[in-house]
């Protein structure tokens, strides 16, 4: 009997097992360019948060305290059941764990996390707001998010004694609450729009001012939400000193191999760059639309909406001089942006599943598989190209992403509703 086929099969199986199980070789040192790239991803390279020229109270502690209260207050919704924190849950890096957000109704997109997002010049997946304070206003008037409307927001600020005192200390006088109709907004339903049109210009201006200031306080609070240093940052800082790949086991072999892919063959660092692992810009990566929705035009529509927004950097409620509104003034608006969505940061990515603006992928493994295939986009063109990575390499990339996770560098008082003494929920979470 010829034993050759059996021997060949056994040899092939043994080779496969060796390839699968043997530790891969790692270089002794990163190259100079790799070392520089790794150093650029460390939180040590994160600049201090710059001022928001449109928000004069952005770094005022009193504004942050007011914003903190507002962030957790369900009265800022049409059904008094939804606050900002309903979808931006502290224990999930301020995301919600759902594919698509659910506020007062079913939303349209996945809820992004908020840790470190104050460093971004653009907000929302499609960049339809150009500041954190302008962004904070939009859900308050979107019927399926909070939908309170600016009348209700101004009325709450004026009628709640604590809010009124905090507000007036920062921003000056408010109208009496009984002079502000609860259901009045130029962006609401027909009744709200009708009530809004019935107001005289001075009343409209007073409500708009209070509304804008609520957004500025909410932004002042969210600027407190900064990423904390993780194992990767300690590793990267060591690499910056000597370029050695192994740094006393600070990262596992898989994590190191994943890092090598992240800055090398997988090309993740092209868009996920800098200490927050985001270029804060917009790219089409061929994500299919949400079932039942038309494909999102993404940044193509977003930049047009940002320009129309009454609360943008150039608007009358902004504290910025026009010369300070560089991103808005020089924003690109051509067809290459069709289907492009914002690059999310990856600092706490293991806590913010499901992924992408559609929430289409339940796990990081699915995300990486998508990038490995780089399918043709339904709208525009997919900027990514197929990677051809092996299963093992995809697992290594995922392992590296886990090394980025850390509790936020934010005092625990800001991570729970004001007035509630709770343990830090970030530290209560089981590993995901």
């Amino acid at each position, binding site marked *: 009997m010829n034993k050759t086929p059996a021997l060949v099969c056994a040899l092939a199986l043994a080779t496969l097992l060796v390839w699968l199980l043997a530790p891969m070789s790692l270089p002794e040192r990163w190259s100079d360019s790799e070392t520089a790239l790794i150093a650029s991803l460390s939180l040590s390279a994160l600049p201090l948060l710059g001022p928001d020229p449109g928000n004069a109270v952005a770094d005022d502690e009193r504004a942050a305290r007011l914003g903190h209260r507002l962030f957790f207050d369900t009265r800022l919704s049409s059904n008094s059941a939804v606050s900002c924190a309903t979808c931006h849950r502290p224990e999930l890096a301020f995301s919600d764990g759902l594919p698509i957000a659910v506020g007062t109704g079913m939303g349209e997109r996945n809820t992004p996390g908020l840790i470190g997002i104050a460093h971004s010049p653009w907000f929302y997946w499609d960049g339809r707001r150009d500041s954190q304070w302008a962004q904070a206003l939009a859900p308050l008037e979107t019927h399926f998010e909070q939908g309170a409307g600016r009348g209700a927001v101004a009325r709450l600020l004026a009628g709640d004694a604590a809010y009124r005192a905090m507000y007036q200390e920062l921003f000056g006088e408010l109208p009496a609450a009984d002079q502000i109709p609860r259901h009045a907004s130029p962006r609401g339903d027909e009744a709200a729009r009708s009530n809004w049109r019935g107001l005289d210009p001075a009343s409209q201006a007073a409500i708009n001012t209070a509304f804008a200031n609520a957004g500025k306080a909410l932004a002042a609070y969210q600027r407190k939400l900064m990423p904390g240093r993780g194992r990767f940052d300690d590793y990267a800082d060591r690499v910056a000193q000597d370029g050695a790949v192994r740094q006393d086991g600070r990262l596992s072999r898989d994590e190191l191999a994943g890092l090598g892919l992240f800055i090398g063959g997988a090309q993740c660092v*092209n868009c996920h760059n*800098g200490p927050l692992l985001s*270029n*804060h*810009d917009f790219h089409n990566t061929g994500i299919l639309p949400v079932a039942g929705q038309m494909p999102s035009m993404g940044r193509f529509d977003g930049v047009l909406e940002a320009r129309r927004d009454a609360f943008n950097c150039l608007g009358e409620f902004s504290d910025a001089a026009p010369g300070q509104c*560089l991103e808005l*003034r*020089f924003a690109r*608006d051509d067809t*290459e942006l069709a289907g492009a969505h914002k690059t999310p940061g990856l600092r706490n990515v293991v806590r913010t599943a499901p992924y992408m603006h559609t929430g289409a992928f339940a796990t990081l493994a699915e995300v990486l598989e998508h990038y490995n295939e780089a399918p043709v986009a339904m709208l525009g063109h997919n900027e990514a190209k197929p990677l051809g990575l092996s299963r093992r390499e995809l697992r290594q990339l995922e392992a590296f992403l886990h090394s980025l996770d850390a509790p936020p560098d934010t005092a625990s008082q800001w991570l729970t509703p004001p007035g509630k003494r709770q343990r830090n929920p970030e530290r209560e979470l089981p590993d995901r």
Partner: protein
Amino acid sequence: MLRCFLCTLMLLLAPLPALAEEQPQFTLLTSDGRQLRIVSELSPLAINRIHSWRLYLTDADNTPVHGAEISVTGGMPDHDHGLPTRPRLTGEPEPGVYLLEGVRFHMPGRWRMDFSIALNGGPDSASLEFEL
């Protein structure tokens, strides 16, 4: 075509005494033989930060060229995409010195910037390639 190709190749890193240690700069020869010196107001040049460039346009005899209209396009040839912003000229603070605002780069790698220069004497152009 050949001239345009050559002007792309004429990229020189030419430090000037007053600014050499502070601001990144490039000097190009345009297709019509003028000199276009580019000085970044962001130093060092880095990704993800919007900033301005100053463009110094001079004739072959080093005379500042006043009243030019300069437009800029660009992108990453290796990634087949354009600039993340739409930079444009917003003024000529001194004769022959032009302010280009809204410059930002969002990826590490090779970038290309193409300058189209409109003058009374006809169109001129220059291209810059650099690594970030």
